[in-house]
């Protein structure tokens, strides 16, 4: 697996703390929804820092989009989100991972449970679903702090329907008149959003480690088979 030079094509703000950075990666072999890349930064003195980021985009030639949350006190993410401009270059390798992936041919029903920027690999699945013209029953339960912190908010509004259900829960603050969920994801919420365990959905959970742990526990408690629940914890990895 070789390190490739990736050139920034575009930087798009998603929320106050999150940006999508689009790269052109010559020689990119293509990828599947849910896979990630390793990003490597090298300082002038040779010091290197490396992080993993999920790919947000569907396969499209040599284009690879990463959506990155700026972590306070992070070593890599502040550089990526604050400093990178079109024309800048970094190194990346991938795609990596073959376990936390979904392809439209696998079909549904699909239950996607996201916490904050954990939505990124799940959004790649939703985009792949749309690109393939799939109408597989897909439910996204997405936990964010506030309405301003909802990543891909407008795109999700556009894509909903045609078998895709998007349900938000806002855990810290809610806009006035909010009638949706306003608490952390729990078993009751997962049961309401469905699909039920008897429909044997493929379940993908991605978010911070404590979030994933709580959701995975609630899913198993509801009767989902552990092997159908795939998790990706990103933990406080120093960003």
């Amino acid at each position, binding site marked *: 697996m070789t390190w490739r030079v990736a050139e920034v094509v575009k930087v798009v703000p998603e929320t106050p703390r999150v940006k999508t950075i689009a790269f052109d990666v010559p020689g990119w072999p293509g990828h599947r929804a849910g896979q990630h890349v390793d990003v490597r930064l090298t300082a002038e003195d040779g010091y290197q820092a490396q992080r993993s980021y999920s790919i947000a985009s569907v396969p499209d030639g040599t284009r690879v989009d990463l959506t990155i949350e700026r972590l306070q006190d992070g070593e890599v993410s502040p550089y990526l989100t604050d400093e990178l401009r079109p024309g800048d270059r970094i190194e990346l390798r991938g795609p*990596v991972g073959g*376990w936390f992936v979904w392809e439209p041919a696998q079909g549904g029903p699909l239950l996607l449970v996201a916490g904050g920027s954990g939505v990124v690999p799940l959004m790649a699945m939703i985009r792949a679903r749309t690109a393939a013209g799939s109408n597989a029953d897909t439910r996204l339960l997405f936990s964010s702090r506030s309405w301003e912190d909802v990543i891909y908010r407008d795109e999700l509004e556009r894509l909903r329907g045609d078998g895709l259900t998007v349900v938000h829960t806002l855990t810290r603050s809610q806009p006035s008149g909010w009638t949706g969920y306003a608490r952390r994801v729990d078993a009751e919420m997962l049961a309401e959003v469905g699909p039920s365990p008897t429909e044997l959905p493929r379940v993908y959970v991605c978010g911070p*480690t404590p979030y994933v742990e709580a959701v995975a526990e609630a899913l198993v408690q509801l009767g989902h088979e552990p092997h159908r629940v795939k*998790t990706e914890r990103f933990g406080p990895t120093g960003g």
Partner: protein
Amino acid sequence: MDPLMLDGNAIAGLLQEVFAVEMTTAIGTCNTCGAADRVGALRVFRGAGIVMRCPHCDNALVTIVEDGPRVWIGFAGIRTLQVTI
């Protein structure tokens, strides 16, 4: 619950570099409890090195220490590793 815990996915790049094949779909069998799991579903803890643990019995399956281009891998708790090549 350890807030630093990750999944096998988190070290997919490193494993692929070492084994030269996609490893998160490989199946590891724990030599303590006998459970067989995809590497992507194992628990990963990062410290000075990396420890992969069985999600069922917490047995330490694999330890990995990196030092520049050299990598030390110990298979202390793995009975078998099934890899598709």
